[in-house]
């Protein structure tokens, strides 16, 4: 068996393959649902209903997609330049923590809301950047592989967050529970739908996706970053400043992940805890890949992942089967989607 690259993937295939992937994932998940003793078709219906069928489901799906879009973009930007940022999870947390810390400055609470929001978003992004610049610095200076360092920094970041929210940043009004002081009211993102959790962060995430797309597809920076990723030697020969380009990429990637944390804390939770992220950082990596590292595709992949999760989670509650089925379904559809994407790009021959 051999695989040949399709130079001109067909449009029908591009449309059919993801459908096939979802189908395959649902069949396998259905098997598990059946083993758990529930009616499979009822379960499928409930997944759809859970994700779209109500105001609640719909808003929850979009709410969950918001941070995923941003962490997905963070991974996509970095991976394009072959900067293996596995640390979006940590960057997410320090982004969130930085916003909470910034909010503790008394003067911030007195700022007009739009200014406070913009400043907080900026602070979160910068914190994320710094956390990624560290492993990049180690790579550029000492040649340390950033896959491992950025991964390890996730644990350090979460422990650091834990230390801060039990220490200097602990909310004295939180009954001793380890959580940070809440962000001031003027930095809370406005809601998009009343009586739901959907907030303006979604619009920021969408805008970021477009901005990142434009940056990658239309600007000199985008072209250089891609060149540096695909072939450092050829890029250097063409005069691309490798170090500077990578630093810029790291700022963008870490910044987006930090922004995701900032937005989550400003839009949904209001304060930082150590379970702020159900692996948004790691999921972002998979989402970026599903999107083929295309920023616009990231929106679709994030939505897809959110639909699967929110839908399956709700289904598990409705049917009383173990709620872990939600993660199983998401993971399965991610894997089948990867294979489907592969098949759109390659054909199997003898």
């Amino acid at each position, binding site marked *: 068996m051999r695989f040949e690259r399709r130079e001109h993937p067909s449009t029908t295939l591009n449309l059919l393959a993801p459908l096939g992937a979802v189908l395959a994932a649902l069949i396998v998940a259905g098997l598990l649902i059946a083993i758990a003793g529930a009616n499979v078709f009822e379960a499928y219906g409930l997944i759809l209903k859970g994700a779209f069928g109500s105001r609640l489901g719909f808003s929850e799906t979009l709410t969950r997609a918001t941070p995923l879009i941003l962490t997905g973009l963070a991974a996509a930007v970095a991976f394009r330049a072959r900067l293996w940022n596995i640390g979006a999870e940590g960057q997410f947390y320090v982004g969130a923590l930085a916003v909470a810390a910034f909010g503790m400055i008394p003067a911030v609470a007195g700022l007009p809301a739009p200014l406070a929001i913009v400043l907080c978003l900026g602070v979160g992004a910068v914190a994320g950047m710094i956390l990624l610049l560290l492993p990049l610095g180690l790579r550029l200076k000492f040649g*340390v592989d950033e896959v491992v360092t950025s991964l*390890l920094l996730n644990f350090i970041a979460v422990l650091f967050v834990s230390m801060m929210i039990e220490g200097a940043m602990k909310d004295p009004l939180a009954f001793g529970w380890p959580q940070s002081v809440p962000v001031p009211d003027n930095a809370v993102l406005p809601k998009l739908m009343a009586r739901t959790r959907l907030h303006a962060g979604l619009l920021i995430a969408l805008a970021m996706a477009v901005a990142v797309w434009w940056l990658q597809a239309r600007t000199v920076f985008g072209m250089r970053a891609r060149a540096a990723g695909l072939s450092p030697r050829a890029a250097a020969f063409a005069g691309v400043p490798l170090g500077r380009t990578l630093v810029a990429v790291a700022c963008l990637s870490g910044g987006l992940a930090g922004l995701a944390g900032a937005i989550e804390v400003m839009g949904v939770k209001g304060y930082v805890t150590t379970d702020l992220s159900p*692996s948004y950082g790691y999921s972002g990596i998979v989402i970026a*890949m599903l999107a083929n590292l295309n920023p616009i595709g990231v929106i679709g992949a994030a939505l897809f992942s959110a639909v699967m999760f929110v839908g399956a989670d709700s289904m598990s509650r409705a049917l009383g089967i173990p709620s872990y089925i939600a993660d199983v379904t*998401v*993971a399965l559809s991610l894997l089948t989607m990867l294979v489907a994407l592969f098949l759109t790009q390659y054909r199997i021959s003898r």
Partner: protein
Amino acid sequence: MSLLFDILSSVGMWEAVLRIATPLIFGTLGVLLCERVGVLNLGIEGIMTFGAMVGWLTVYSGGNLWLGLLAAAAGGALFGLLHGVLTALLGLSQHVTGLGITLFASSFSYFVFRLAVPTASSPPTVEPFRAYPVPVLSEIPFLGPVLFNQTAPTYLALGLVAVLAYVLYRTPLGLAIRMTGENPHAVDAQGIDPIRLRIGTIMAGSALMGVGGAFLTLAAFNSFFPTMVQGRGWICVALVVFALWQPGRALLGALLFAFFDAFQLRLQTVVDGVPYQLFLMLPYVLSIVALIVMARRARVPQALMQPYRRGER
């Protein structure tokens, strides 16, 4: 100072080092095998979880402990096959596939566990591996209880280090594995199918990861519960770099990491006023420091993370 001495001179401390190190040794050897053949396996965290679950479930439903380890190995190998097909055969991105497998294997384990053990007030237990004092040797003062009063899987882990080193450096198979990690085209040109070799090696490595997970439920503890692997898999990924992809150093790295873990637990009980998170950070920070120190000498397998598709240029 004398506190430090007390900690460092206690048999319990050093015994704990070896015990904490055991799952890391299995996991690290597993990652090492995969990377030696050119494939990053970030699926380890999930594979260890699955090994922990399957191993435990086997024993819980009446199998003996060794059968449990075997089941964990087989379960690991199964996910290794999946990882191998996706990365070695299809050439998909190794990061993403690995993370996807971690996501899948862990949630799948929890799901199966919940189906098998629907409801329980405290985690149901099995009779785990007990320490097996090696006759005579375990009577050596200090070293005896530390080294020779461990559970059987710990001895197995130590033995595996030697076996793996032998296989990698002294057998034709090991040479082919190392060659594939350096240049799959070269093995292909010598008539060995690098894709099959990769898949097989990933399966073997993942089997080790599964056993590492099972150690947690069958020796270190006696029950399974969700999230119990707690990032140990990721540590193994770091340890392999620290180990410069050599089994002997992998053992050293695992022991060193376990030393800091055991040490911080004990330090915590005697040192006041320092946030406990700092202690918990210690092993991770030291790993990064070690990576910096080692980086210059590291000889990364050249084909690591490079997909190989036959007949593609």
